[in-house]
């Protein structure tokens, strides 16, 4: 068995003294693991950093085997990502989310979205907004997508302001106002075609919304936590939001 593909490195576990088992996201083979011999050498250490794009050749005698990867650097993204808080948080969150996917199940859309996201992690607010959109897409790919096309109560397609935690469907402002304390906020930039530039409050609401469903459907049943970098990013955003609010008052 053999295939060649450009991949995104999403994890590495040391194996023995010199090798490592790497976890990559591929466009056609989904999340895939394989052994890299000499992975902890001086030559390969900078190459095998989470967030880098690699050109890999996977070889195994049988399809079910772990297999061996031979790797070459395609795009050194990790060095740039490491320079900023939004970069490291972003890459940790995206890699953490992609590691939730089933092995060897193709998700070409998520692969492309992850690459695009990592190439546009610039500034905390913009990065967090992109991550919220990515999480929405992840929920959809995992079969727990939110229905944000029309109001669950009235059928209206405008003024969608909330999401029902029970049905995961959008609720309009008028129908949702009496139950606002029990509904999740839906910022406009998350809506299909939503182009509005979000502020810190919108992004915090978006991350809380996607975090609620990710926790309920993905992390909770597996008894795992969402990536810790996510709560760090959320904490920073909330601090920023408080700062902006206090400046206004």
């Amino acid at each position, binding site marked *: 068995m053999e295939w060649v593909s450009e991949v995104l490195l999403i994890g590495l576990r040391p194996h023995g003294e010199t090798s490592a088992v790497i976890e990559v996201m591929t466009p056609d083979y989904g999340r895939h693991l394989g052994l890299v011999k000499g992975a902890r050498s001086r030559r390969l250490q*900078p190459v095998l950093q989470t*967030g880098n794009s690699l050109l890999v050749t996977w070889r195994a005698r049988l399809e079910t085997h772990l297999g061996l990867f031979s790797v070459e650097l395609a795009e*050194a993204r990790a*060095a*740039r990502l490491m320079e900023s808080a939004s970069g*490291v948080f972003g890459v*940790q969150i995206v890699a*953490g989310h992609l590691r939730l996917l089933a092995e060897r199940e193709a998700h070409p859309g998520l692969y492309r979205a992850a690459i695009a996201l990592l190439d546009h992690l610039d500034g905390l607010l913009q990065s967090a907004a992109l991550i919220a959109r990515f999480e929405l897409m992840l929920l959809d790919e995992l079969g727990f997508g939110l229905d944000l096309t029309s109001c669950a109560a009235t059928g209206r397609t405008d003024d969608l302001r909330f999401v029902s935690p029970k049905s995961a469907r959008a609720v309009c402002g008028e129908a949702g106002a009496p139950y606002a304390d029990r509904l999740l906020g839906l910022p406009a930039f998350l809506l299909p075609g939503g182009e509005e530039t979000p502020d810190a409050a919108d992004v915090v609401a978006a991350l809380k919304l996607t975090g609620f469903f990710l926790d309920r459907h993905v992390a909770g049943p597996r008894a795992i936590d969402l990536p*810790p970098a996510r709560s760090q990013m959320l904490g920073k955003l909330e601090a920023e939001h408080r700062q902006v609010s206090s400046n206004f008052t």
Partner: protein
Amino acid sequence: MARRVTGPEIERLIQLLARLPGLGPRSARRAALQLVKKRDQLLAPLTDAMRTVHDRVRVCSACGNVDTADPCTVCTDPTRDGSVIVVVEDVADLWALERAGAVNARYHVLGGVLSPLSGIGPDDLDITGLVERASDPAVKEIILAVNATVDGQTTAHYVTDRLEGLGVKVTRLAHGVPVGGELDYLDEGTLTAAIRSRTPF
């Protein structure tokens, strides 16, 4: 099955030596043979030294270094600059910096880095101890000497957040061209980092 050539005691010694980093079964066998051959000159003093270290080794309650005294030799050295704390991941990093003699400061060993893949969270590292030490008005600068990996830099950002508001200057190591490094042989990531971190000449 290969026939045994030594008794169980020597076989056990070989098996234990083979667990050390850098030693495989063959090199462990050679080391064991050397120890047995030089029983009085090597094996006996090594046994004594290992027994002494086993009985006396301590983790420094202040910085996390390993030593036979608590506080350790580095923490009790009066010639060191107490206003600077160098934060490292592991004792091996502390020893590497000391070998270089690049900084005459005190240290703080975190005991690893944040790694979601290995399940290492903030509670598994000695970050609270660092925050307590950094709260001392005598401390002016914290140097984050963690590895230039995604996990290392995530830890650096987390530590920076925790130190916010304490009034200490937080710096980190530069990323770029190593001494003796030829640009032609460097990976693109290091070259990009080097260009971004360029300094006036």
